[in-house]
């Protein structure tokens, strides 16, 4: 249904992730911005876990080889379907032969709200790739899942689950979650963090610095993890700890004192001290933070982390309800 026209690498097929296989040493993979993936699927009436294309490098271009409804979410990439400009976070009907072009998103100099890095292209019925270990996500390290276990290349063709001219309403959009649920500190995007097992093993100065200073996302950042740059975090005494299980969101501090946040393609175990964990409800914010941008951390407790997740679920619930109402109205027209 779509053919990749771009040579730019690193676009992958992702759903919400391969959960439940960590015990086999298989990482979770999945969309770096799971909220954008869910929203794209909701606009199309797909299962929220349906697979989409995650695009981190631009410009990116595809051709529709058959009629197919599609949704755009995540980074605002000034999308064009042939000559028609498309608004971000919206759903459309493509005809066979049309070309979709995504330009680079706003630069890191833009206001915090616009500092995003990943776009999601969702197709009606989801992207039809094999379900392996209960997920269609690309497992880059293991080279399986997604499309042939690798990033997409020029000439690759992907099928949609439900191509054709859909009966559902298209042409509408939604308010991005970053607008509805902004989280910033002093003009910088922020994420909430739970202190982790070795937090108390760092000096009080380092603990204070972590919450009060900005952290730059360095060029050594990708789907595996983000390496941050800032004031060095110093342990009270040198630590040597055994390897243990880690999940996306865990913030480790290696000997350099510069933290690493494990992301969706993180390996399932590691031995660096754990300073904190980015809460699950804020992983989408982190997934959109571009290289070179600065982020801030906000200290929270368990109850706040759970409440934040509930807020995200409420946002999705309301979105589902409004889209259902919109589809009902469309069906009557």
């Amino acid at each position, binding site marked *: 249904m779509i053919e990749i026209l771009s040579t730019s690498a690193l676009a992958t097929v992702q759903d919400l992730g391969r959960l439940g296989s960590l015990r086999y040493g298989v990482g979770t993979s999945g969309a770096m911005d799971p909220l954008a993936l869910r929203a794209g699927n909701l606009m199309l009436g797909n299962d929220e876990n349906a697979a989409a294309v995650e695009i981190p490098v631009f410009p990116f271009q595809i051709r529709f080889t058959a009629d197919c409804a599609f949704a755009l979410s995540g980074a*605002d990439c000034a999308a064009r379907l042939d000559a028609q400009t498309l*608004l*971000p*976070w*919206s759903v459309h009907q493509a005809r066979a032969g049309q070309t979709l072009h995504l330009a680079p998103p706003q630069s890191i100099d833009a206001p915090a*709200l*616009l500092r995003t890095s990943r776009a999601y292209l969702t197709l009606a019925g989801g992207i039809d790739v094999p379900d392996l270990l209960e997920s269609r996500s690309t497992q880059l390290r293991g080279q399986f899942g997604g499309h042939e276990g690798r990033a997409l290349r020029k000439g690759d063709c992907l099928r949609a689950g439900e191509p054709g001219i859909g009966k559902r309403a298209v*042409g*509408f*959009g*939604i*308010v*991005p979650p970053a*607008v*509805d649920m902004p989280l910033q500190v002093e003009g910088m995007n922020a994420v909430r963090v739970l202190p982790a097992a070795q937090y108390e093993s760092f000096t009080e100065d380092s603990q204070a610095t972590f919450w009060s200073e900005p952290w730059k996302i360095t060029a050594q950042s990708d789907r595996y993890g983000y390496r941050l740059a800032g004031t060095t975090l110093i342990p009270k005494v040198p630590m040597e700890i055994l390897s243990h299980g880690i999940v996306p969101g865990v913030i480790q501090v290696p000997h350099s004192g510069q933290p690493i946040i494990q992301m969706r393609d993180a390996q399932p175990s590691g031995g660096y001290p754990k300073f904190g964990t980015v809460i699950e409800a804020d992983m989408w914010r982190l997934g959109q933070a571009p290289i070179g941008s600065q982020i801030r951390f906000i200290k929270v407790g368990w109850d706040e982390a759970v409440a934040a997740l509930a807020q995200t679920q409420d*946002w999705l619930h*309301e*979105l589902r309800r*409004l*889209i259902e*109402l*919109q589809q*009902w*109205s*469309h069906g*009557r*027209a």
Partner: protein
Amino acid sequence: MDIVQISEIFDWLAPTSICELEFNTPQTHLRLRRAPPENDCAAPHSASSPEAETSPDTAPALLAAEAVAPKSFAAKAPCVGVFLHRHPLRSEDLAPAGGTVRTGQIIGLLQIGALLLPLSAPADGVVIEHLVRHGGISGYADELIILQAL
């Protein structure tokens, strides 16, 4: 809310083209739906086109005058909502005053909760003015943007 009030809402809706209404309070959830009336209320673009506004019995002299000064026409709200001149992620208006727009081009948005519904140009034209401010409430079929025919 009692049955008398619901009946009253029915009476309000009767002369309109509104075919669905949802009303929520902490105690009440009311959803009224009805079949679209004859005129098809749900036509997505209800705004009048320049041609539609030309009355057949217009005096010839007036028609001559209009030939010199192009007619203006309005883009009307296809639904109730919050009128947005621009997308929440963008700083520039979709249809700034003085700009030329083409039939079907998105010239504004109506926000209902998290939904953004397009306001499309009913015909080719030049944007004269916005009648409702960015973020203002719009009723059904309210005139939102005045355009001048090309």
